[in-house]
């Protein structure tokens, strides 16, 4: 639908690009920021969310200084895919105690890459569970670290217990072409998964 391509509410003004996002998930140190950086057109940025216990918007500073705050940092990069569409890549906060941010990250996400570190495969179990439960399409990218044992993708599939339709690819997060191929695999997977719904 052409009407969905541009913001049309303000006539006479230039259209504002549409933003979409892909999540790069995985355990701490799995290479999320590295992958974001290898394909991003800007050096990876980090934004901070400050969570407070103050749950509603009040014009009252009284007592706010006593409320406990938690700061969560999220790394992201940008790829301008066309003049109308901008893709953002968000790395998930590495520590498990920041799970609450995952909901916001996942909302409206096109899909996700789960970066698996074969030296610590269990660190990406949570991510696989999360995206499966939320129905967010994802691919698993096995990041090749020096010194890690070479695994076959089928061994990883078995260990992670992901179904056949979820692509598992080998990757080097430091390498631009390799990271690009992972993203191509993901978006192809997303389009494939949506095709029946679109045609029917």
């Amino acid at each position, binding site marked *: 639908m052409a009407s969905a391509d541009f913001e049309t509410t303000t006539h006479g003004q230039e259209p504002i*690009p549409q933003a979409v996002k892909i999540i790069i998930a995985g355990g701490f140190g799995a290479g999320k920021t590295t992958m974001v950086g290898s394909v991003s057109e800007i050096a990876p940025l980090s934004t901070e969310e*400050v*969570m407070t216990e*103050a749950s509603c*918007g009040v014009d009252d500073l009284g007592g706010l200084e006593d409320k406990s705050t938690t700061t969560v940092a999220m*790394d992201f990069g940008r790829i301008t895919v066309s003049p109308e569409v901008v893709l953002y890549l968000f790395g998930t906060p590495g520590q498990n105690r920041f799970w609450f941010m995952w909901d916001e990250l996942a909302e*409206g996400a096109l899909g996700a890459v789960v970066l698996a570190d074969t030296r610590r495969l269990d660190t990406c179990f949570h991510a696989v569970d999360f995206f499966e439960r939320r129905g967010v399409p994802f691919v698993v990218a096995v990041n090749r670290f020096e010194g890690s044992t070479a695994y076959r993708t089928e061994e990883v599939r078995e260990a992670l217990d992901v179904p056949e339709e979820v692509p598992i690819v080998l990757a080097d997060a430091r390498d631009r072409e390799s990271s690009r191929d992972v993203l191509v695999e993901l978006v192809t997977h997303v389009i494939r998964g*949506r095709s029946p719904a679109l045609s029917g």
Partner: protein
Amino acid sequence: MTGRQERGRSGTVSPPETEGFEGADLFPPAQEAPWHRGRGHPTSEGPSEGVLSGDAPEGPLVRPYTMTRGRTRPCGSGPRLDLITIVVAARGRQEQVAEPEREAILRLCGRPISVAEISARLDIPLTVVRVILGDLLADGDIRTRAAVPVTQLPDKKVLQAVLDGIRRL
């Protein structure tokens, strides 16, 4: 600039048609910000090279919510400001803005930019950026384009554009 920031794609050339959106070098240098600038890590993977833990203040020198006069949520009925809501300054804005944060945000919004990028480039927490953007929106100083709602995934055309764009990398 830290080593990590320099590691970006400075050597690569953007396609000419995307130049209108590419504006990293137009942003004001970080040190011009009149408020405290974060803790010295460009990314959450840890402190950047050359930054010793002793260099980083324990907490913000300016309590973030003083910028918003204590508010932790955007005012009233405005649209939801997602991480990737794109913001652009409304054309023809003339008057001077008193608050430096508002002025800095409006400067960044000369070209379309996401909420997350505004937060990162100005080193102001997202929650605070959202409140200030809510004010600017209410005053008609900015326009926004919301991210695709959760119930309505990006359409095929957008997905194809993303796929083509990634393949060109």
